[in-house]
Each structure stands twice: as C-alpha cells, then as structure tokens.
C-alpha cells in the first residue's frame, strides 16, 4: 500500500490546506471582508458633516471598529458548515490533538481574511485623511491585533455554532470581549499622532495576542464539544 503515516505537523498542514481550499473555492471569501471593510468605513464620512481634520482624528477609531466588525462577520462561517454537515463530529472524534487543529484553522482563516485587511488599511487611511505619521502604527497595530480578534471571534463562533443564524448574537458576545484589543489598537495610532512613544501600547497588544494564542483554542474546543451534543 502507498499509505504514508503523518506526524502532527503534516496532519496540521492538511487542516490548513483544507481551510485554504475552502477559501479559494469562492474568491468572495477573501474579497468580501475587504469590501466590507472599505464600504463600512466610508459610511461614516457619508453620514455627517465632518471637518476634514476631525475626520482625520477619528480615522483610527473608524478603521479599527470596522476591522473588528469585518473580522467578526467573516469569522461567522468558520465552524458553521462543518457543524451543519457533520464534519465537526469527525474532527472531535478524531484521535488528533484538537488544540492545534483548531488553532491552525483559525490562523488559516486569518490568513485569508485578516491579513488582507492589514494590506488595504492604508487605502482607508487615505480615504479618511489619516495623518502621515499614523500609517506605520496603524499597520503594526493591525498585524498584532487582528489575529487576536480572530481568535476571540472564533470563541464566539464556536459557542453559537449550534444556533440557527446567529449573526447578531455573535456580535453581542464578541464585541465586548474585543474591546481591549480595540482600545490598545486604536491607542497605538492615537499615541503616535500625539507624538508619544508607542512601544508600551504595542507590547500590550502583543501580550494580548500571546494570551489569546494560548487560551482561546482551549475555549474553542470546549465550546465545540458542548455544541456537538
């Protein structure tokens, strides 16, 4: 037989590959969160008379809030189809270490939804008149913050996976938990715009990421087990 035994690494790669295959099977999976990010951000200037400088000063907030919403909305589908078709049962019943499989699944999802957000963020900076010295802190913040947001959103998704159509419920669970990331993330830019050193805030963001990487998978696995009763 041509059977090749796989170590943990290879088996995680298979999970990652599956996640990416699902993403490229419909280009919308990558493009839509981006478009949401751009469209939702431009709703704010449209909805009121804003002085261009005021707009610039609230730009970090707008970008971070819409990034949070985009991550959360796109995360909604993470476990849903697996739950509906029963694949989640197969995952939970497999003899593999779930912690890593779940982690890799979230990170795979972040690669196709979170990372592109980071890439187009500067464009939004242009649209929203973000001052020049805000771009680098914005990007650093997003790179460190969006994976944390993805992990938090994944907990919410896992908790609500058995519930029919839970977009709003998900938001209600996830948004409060994400507030620290939002505060520090937007805080990095604000601090930089005020000419203060940003290293401290960035360290806080990094700490949140480490925390999420270590504990979120545990919560996710527990939540999935509860739902697959």
């Amino acid at each position, binding site marked *: 037989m041509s059977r090749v035994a796989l170590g943990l690494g290879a*088996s995680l790669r*298979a999970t990652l590959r*599956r996640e990416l295959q699902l993403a490229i099977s419909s280009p919308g999976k990558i493009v839509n969160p981006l478009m949401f990010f751009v469209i939702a951000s431009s709703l704010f200037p449209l909805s009121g008379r804003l002085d261009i400088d005021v707009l610039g000063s609230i730009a970090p907030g707008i970008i971070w809030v819409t990034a949070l919403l985009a991550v959360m909305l796109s995360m909604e589908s993470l476990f849903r*189809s697996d739950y509906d078709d*029963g*694949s989640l*049962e*197969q*995952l939970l*019943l497999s003899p593999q270490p779930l912690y890593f499989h779940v982690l890799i699944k979230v990170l795979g999802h972040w690669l196709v939804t979170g990372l592109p957000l980071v890439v187009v963020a500067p464009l939004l900076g242009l649209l929203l008149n973000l001052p020049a010295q805000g771009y680098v802190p914005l990007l650093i913040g997003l790179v460190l913050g969006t994976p944390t947001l993805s992990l938090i959103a994944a907990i919410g998704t896992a908790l609500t996976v058995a519930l029919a159509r839970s977009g709003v419920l998900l938001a209600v669970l996830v948004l409060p938990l994400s507030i620290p990331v939002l505060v520090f993330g937007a805080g990095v830019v604000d601090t930089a715009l005020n000419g203060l050193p940003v290293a401290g805030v960035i360290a806080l963001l990094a700490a949140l990421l480490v925390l999420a990487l270590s504990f979120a998978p545990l919560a996710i696995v527990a939540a999935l087990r509860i739902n697959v009763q």
Partner: protein
Amino acid sequence: MLSVANLACERDERVLFANLAFTVAAGSLWQVQGANGSGKTTLLRILAGLNGDYSGELQWQGKVCSEVRTEYQQALFFLGHAPSVNRTLTPLQNLRWFCALQGFADDAAIHSALNEHGLRGYADIPCYQMSAGQQRRVSLARLSLTSAKLWILDEPFTALDRVGVAELEARVSRHAAAGGAVILTTHHPLQTQHPLTVLNLDALRPEAA
C-alpha cells in the same frame, strides 16, 4: 470490545431507556431497532462519546471509555445522520482531510475507495453537484479508508439505491466477519449472511415492558 452497563437516558420528561446492559464482542453485528423517537440516535451518540447526558458505564476493552478517550477514538468510526461531507470541496479533498485526521495520507487508497463506492470519475467534482445518494456514498467511502475496529452507523442506508444498499450490507458483514464490530440503525430489513444481534428499544422501554 465495547461493554455497556446499567445505561439510562432520559430526555425532558421521558425515559428513553434504562438498565441497558450489553457487550458488543469482536465479530458481532448489531442492529438497534425501534420506532421513530425511541432513542436510537441518542443511544448511538452516547456510545460514540458525543452525548454525555446519560447515567451508566461504558467500557472499551475493559477500561472506562472516558479514561481511554484517544485510544477509543482511534478504534471508533462514527457516522451520524449528517453525511460529514463538505459541499464545496471535492470528494478527494474531503477524504484527504479525513485520512489526515486518522494520521495518514494515501491518494491511491482514496481513489480506489471512491471507485468501490460507485463514484468513479467523481473524485474532482465539487460535492454540491452531486445527488443525495452520491453524497452519502462519498461519506461511506470512509469505510474503506478507516482502520477502526468498531463502526457505529446511524441510518447509513438513507438515500442509497438498491445496489448501494446491497453493497453496504455486504461491507458491514465482511467487517464483522473479519473481527470488527458494527452497530447500526436502519428501518429496512437487513439482509446479511453474518449473524445479526438485534437490540429493540421499543421492547426495552419501561412503559412497553
């Protein structure tokens, strides 16, 4: 292999079964029978470790199941009402992931499993383009790939055509004959060479007794 002692489960107000005790030996083929709503699915999910809402004891090879979880899961293949087939992926991609979760990779085996299950030529077609029965076949192709000893199958004959049903009957008999064990539910009369043990939940129910 799997032995059950004093198993009881109630849902809401109703006792589905109580004092259930049996042992599934290697080489045996079990059919769980019962009217609609008698608790077959519930029982199978309890046995598979997917439902923790019961009292009683499950033992795998003499050890309590929940204590030897990984080992038990290695020996178990479960298939529920839902086919566990991702509709956007192709059968090949679906089964590759299944194999990886079992810890191996073997495209040749996947292709031959698909052929065996009447899906020659469908390996690379997204599953949403398949009929109900074809999707069920993708799902069942796993039977040719898993090395699990114990199969727990909840209404596996759903949506299969006559040829498919006969093949699956032969397959479970062969597995039992080769020293495996199969527990399944179905509402249609099973036709197998292998001796069949029937567990009738209707007869067991307290109000029926």
